[in-house]
Every structure is written in C-alpha cells, then in structure tokens.
C-alpha cells in the first residue's frame, strides 16, 4: 500500500474518531468540562501560588540580602571583621560591564554600642556600612524612611540612620547626635559621634530595634577597614537572571581578587528559611493538587473506558468490515486525545484569561496585611503564569491518555470480528 493510500486511511480513521466524539454530545461536553474546569482551577491555583512565592522572594530579598552575594568563605559562619575581603581593583569595571546586573553594592558590618549624648540610654546594635546611592536601588530599606532622609546630604559629617524603635529607645530625634562605641579590625576601640539623619520603619521588629546604617566610607575609616568589605550584594531584574550570571561573573571576580578565597551565595543560601518554607509549601500543595487531579483523571478515564466497553459490538463490526484492530485502537486513542486536548485547550484559555486579569489587578486580601507582613509580602498578590503552572495538568492528563491508549490497544487487540451470533 502506498503512503498516499495510507494517508487516506488515516484521514478516514480520524474522521470517524471526530464524529464518534460528538455521538453523545452531553457526555462529551460533561467530560470536556470536567477537564477544562480542573485545568482552569489548577493552573490558576498554581499560578497564584507561584506568584505568591515570587512576591515573597522579591520582597524578602529586596529588603537587604539581594539576589546573591559574594563573601569571604568564612563570613557566613563567623560574620566578623576578620572575615571580609579586599575589594578587587577591577571589580567595579567588571560589575559595570554586566548588562543583566542592575544593582550592586558593597557592605561591611559589625556590632557596636550606641548611646545618646546624655548617656542615659544605650543599645547594642548591628552597624552596617553601606553605599547609600547604590543601596537606594538595591534595598527597600531606603524606601521605608519614616522620618528624616536616607543619607541625601552628602556633606553631612558622620550621618547615621536608625530603626525607628531603636531611635525611640535611645530617645533620639532627627538631628540629634549619638555616640558609637565599637572595636575595629585590629581590636582597638572605635569611637565616633554620629548625627541621626533618618529613621526607617520596616514592620520587622528585630530590624527596627537593632539595626543602624552608616556610610561605608565612614565604616571603613572608623573600623580600620580601608578598601575592604564583607558583602558584595547583587541584584538583577529577575531572580532567574542571576542563575545565568552567577558562574561567569564569579569567575571574573575571583580572578581579579586572587589569591583571596571568595564564596558565591545564592538566594537559597542567603535565605534558607524562605527557601525551605517555599519548598515545603510546594510539596504539600502538590500533594493536594495531585490528589484532586487523580480523582478527576480517574473519573474521566472511567467515563472513557466505559464508553469503549459499551461499544464493543461496534468495534467488532468495524473489524468484520475490514478495519484492523490497530486501526480501531488508533481511532479510539485519537478520540480520547481529541477530548482531552479540547478540554485542556478550553481550560488553558480560560485560565490564561483569568490569570492575566489578576496578574494586572492583583488579588487583595483585606485584613490579612499583618499576617502577610510576617512573611515579608504585601496585602496584594499577583498570580504568575509559568511553564510549571501551565504544564502540570496537561502533563498528567497526557500521561493518563498514554496509559489509557495502551490499555485500549491491549483490549482491542483481542477483539474478534462481529458475527451474527453476537447480535
């Protein structure tokens, strides 16, 4: 038989499959709707979930840590001044060359005691030296200034920004002076007077009450840390871009800083709690989604299988008239594939429309802002369509179709041609 003849035969088989699909319109529409609604629900729920994760990651990582950091290998375990690095001569040029790298900043940190000038109040704090201009686009802390400003006056001598709670505890107002007492990189006393230029309010009590920021240049001078830092904080537009950037950028930085040892820390390393929370949430959600999907898939497959069983005589007739069992099972597989594909397509279309709408306007949960704030997310969440959210349901249905097609093939292979005795 020629290829052309085979094409005509295949076309006839497909035509019969298509007609069979609409033989019981109500049943086909019900099955199709079940697939479409399941797809709509799961795609939207997954998109919403991934959107929430995305918001959590963006907002958490934008607060302080950035999407990745370069550090001394010992710094994570012992974050002290000894575990810093010397900034490479060409680092700024290397970093500026990276088109995908949108923001970067150097930081150094230590612990110190802050006192007001009357010495009536003092607090142990974490003091961070930052590059204010770079931090403005890197960290959301600078956007949460509740009073004063974030190092806007470059002529200001020894400016300091404190958490609101910390400033209140030290009974300080904007413009007041305060004393910093610490220990520099060589163990000597580091003492300096600073002027409070701003306070921030992050809704995170620990940061509001224990964090202070000064300029990196002041930090380096005060703590005898010339040309050194402890963190190079990096940020791209999208988190995924950082994964592509990581290896080549780190190699260049490392080469330039030789013989220093450096360590690349991605967001999972920087925020293990956040990463594990998301992973656990994904695992439990997928368990529920899979259970739901399994129930729907079994119902759909049962319906399809029953419809095949009740048409046994029809297949035996087709076999008697000269249709091969392989052609009959191909016809049935195509029927099922059509039904599943139409359901998936409809569900996809609806879910993309619904998700796209909420991606624009977001979903707000009135009264939940405080709860969400604990996870570092705002009260408005945006679904995020992704390959995973779009692909999970079709993948399961197509795998089920594959299994069903195999079962049908196995069953139809045993079919005998219709004889009059069977009528």
């Amino acid at each position, binding site marked *: *038989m*020629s290829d*052309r*003849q*085979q094409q*005509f*035969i295949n*076309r*006839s088989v497909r035509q*019969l499959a298509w*007609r*069979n699909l*609409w*033989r019981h319109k109500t049943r086909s529409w019900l099955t199709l709707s079940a697939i479409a609604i399941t797809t709509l629900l799961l795609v939207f729920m997954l998109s919403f979930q991934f959107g929430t994760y995305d918001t959590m990651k963006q907002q958490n990582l934008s607060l302080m840590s950035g999407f990745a950091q370069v550090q001394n290998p010992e710094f994570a375990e012992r974050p002290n001044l000894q575990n810093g690095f010397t900034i490479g001569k060409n680092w700024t040029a290397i970093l500026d060359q990276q088109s995908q790298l949108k923001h970067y900043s150097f930081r150094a940190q230590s612990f110190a005691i802050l006192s007001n000038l009357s010495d009536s109040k003092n607090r142990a704090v974490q003091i961070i030296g930052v590059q204010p201009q770079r931090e403005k686009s890197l960290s959301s802390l600078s956007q949460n200034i509740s009073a004063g400003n974030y190092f806007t006056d470059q002529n200001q001598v020894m400016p300091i920004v404190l958490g609101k709670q910390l400033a209140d505890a030290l009974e300080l107002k904007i413009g007041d002076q305060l004393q910093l007492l610490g220990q520099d990189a060589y163990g000597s006393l580091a003492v300096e007077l600073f002027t409070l230029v701003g306070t921030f309010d992050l809704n995170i009590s620990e940061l509001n009450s224990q964090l202070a920021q000064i300029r990196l240049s002041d930090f380096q001078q005060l703590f005898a840390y010339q040309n050194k830092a402890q963190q190079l904080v990096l940020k791209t537009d999208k988190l995924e871009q950082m994964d592509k950037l990581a290896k080549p950028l780190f190699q260049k930085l490392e080469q330039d800083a030789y013989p220093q040892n450096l360590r690349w820390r991605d967001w999972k390393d920087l925020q293990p709690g956040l990463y594990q929370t998301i992973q656990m949430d994904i695992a439990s959600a997928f368990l529920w989604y899979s259970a739901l999907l399994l129930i729907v898939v079994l119902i759909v497959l049962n319906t399809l299988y029953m419809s095949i069983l009740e048409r046994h005589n*029809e297949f035996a*007739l*087709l*076999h*008697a*008239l*000269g*249709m*091969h069992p392989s*052609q009959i099972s191909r016809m049935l597989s195509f029927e099922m594939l059509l039904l599943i594909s139409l359901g998936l397509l409809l569900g996809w279309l609806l879910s993309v429309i619904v998700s796209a709408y909420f991606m624009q306007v977001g979903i707000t949960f009135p009264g939940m802002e405080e709860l969400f704030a604990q996870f570092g997310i705002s009260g408005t969440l945006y679904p995020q369509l992704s390959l995973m959210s779009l692909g999970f349901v079709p993948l399961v249905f197509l795998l089920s179709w594959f299994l069903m097609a195999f079962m049908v093939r196995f069953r139809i292979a045993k079919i*005998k*041609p*219709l*004889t*009059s*005795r069977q*009528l």
Partner: protein
Amino acid sequence: MFHSPVIECQGVCKAFADGDSVIKAIDQVDLEVFGGDFICLYGASGSGKTTLLNLIGGLDRPSSGEVFLDKHPLSHYSDDELTDLRLHKIGFIFQSYNLVPVFSALENVAFILQMQGFSNRDALAKSEYILQQVGLSKLMHRHPAELSGGQQQRVAIARAIVAQPKIVLADEPTANLDSKNSEQLLQLMKQLNQELGTTFIISSHDPQVIQAAERKIELADGKIIHDSLA
C-alpha cells in the same frame, strides 16, 4: 456460471463447547460456490446457517476441514490477512443493518473505499453512484437514524457491494423488514447479482428469499441435507 469455484468447503466442521459437552454446529460440510451464484442457505434455527456463513466470510475459523477462497485456503491466512481479505473481497449484510451511526448513508458506503485507500473524492463519487443504483440518491446525506429499516438495509447492501467484492454474505437480511420491503430488497440483490455478477450467499428463513434463490441449500444439525438448483 463459471466452472472454477469461488468458495470451496472441504470437510468443514465447527464445534462449540457447551459445558462438558461439545456441540457440532457444522459437521463435515462440503460445498462449492461459483462466481455469480445466488444461493440461499435455509433450515431451522440452530441448523448451522449463520455458522457456515461466518466460516465462509473468514469471521470465524473451522475446528477442522478447510475453506478455500479463490483456491486459497483461509487457514493459511493470519488474522490481519483475513481482515484485509474481508475488506477487499467480501461484502457483509447483517440482519440488524449495522451501519455506523455517526456517518451519513453516503459516508457509510464510502468508508469501505476509504479504508481501502481511495481518496475521499473518489470514494464519495463511487458511493454516490452505488446509492443511486439502490434507489437512495435523495437520502444519501441522511444518517441511519433518519432512515427506515428498508432504507438502512439498502445502504447496507450498497456498502457491501461498493468495493465490488467477489462475494456478498447476507445473514437474514429481510428478517427485520415487512414483506413489501423484503420483496424490493430481494429484487435489488438479484438485480445486482445479474448486472454485476456478484455472488450472493444468503442465509434466511424467509420463504420469499428461498423462493427467489437460484440455488437452495438446506441445512439440518450442521449438515447439508439438500442442495438444489431452481
């Protein structure tokens, strides 16, 4: 009538197990069918008419003996080869018409040709012609549910002959029809037999069919007890 048989049965037996006992539905049947024959198999219920038809049509295999089609023994054919043989060389007409419900009359007929590898256009053109021959030119776009029993059986006949098979096997084709429709159908089959030279083997209780047949073969207890030419 030709001298070389189209169908030949040699010592054909078909036995079915019924609990511990064995029932011989066909018992040592020897038969020769020639091209252009118009044969009626008749006999009481359970005499073996349908079983013999199934064996001749390659729908079933004999327990012993051999069925030859164009001198080729069917036992040498694999299941797939038998399927191809039914598609190309044998037409079937069933008591319950057995049309594909989702296809129109025209598509039901054309489907056989399409399965043989004909293009859609050729298959439809040829099927239209055959449906005109059986008097259904105005109803060819109707679905089986929209046709009467007689009309459905005409479609079944058109489907059986459209590929110009060597032989058409009809099992009680008039059983579900009234006498008027039966008569018309019978005339149609005879006309096709005479015009196209197609061999018809019809199993029937219907006296009209028995009377119209050129050759009458009576079966009883799985054996041919009477074989006569009109």
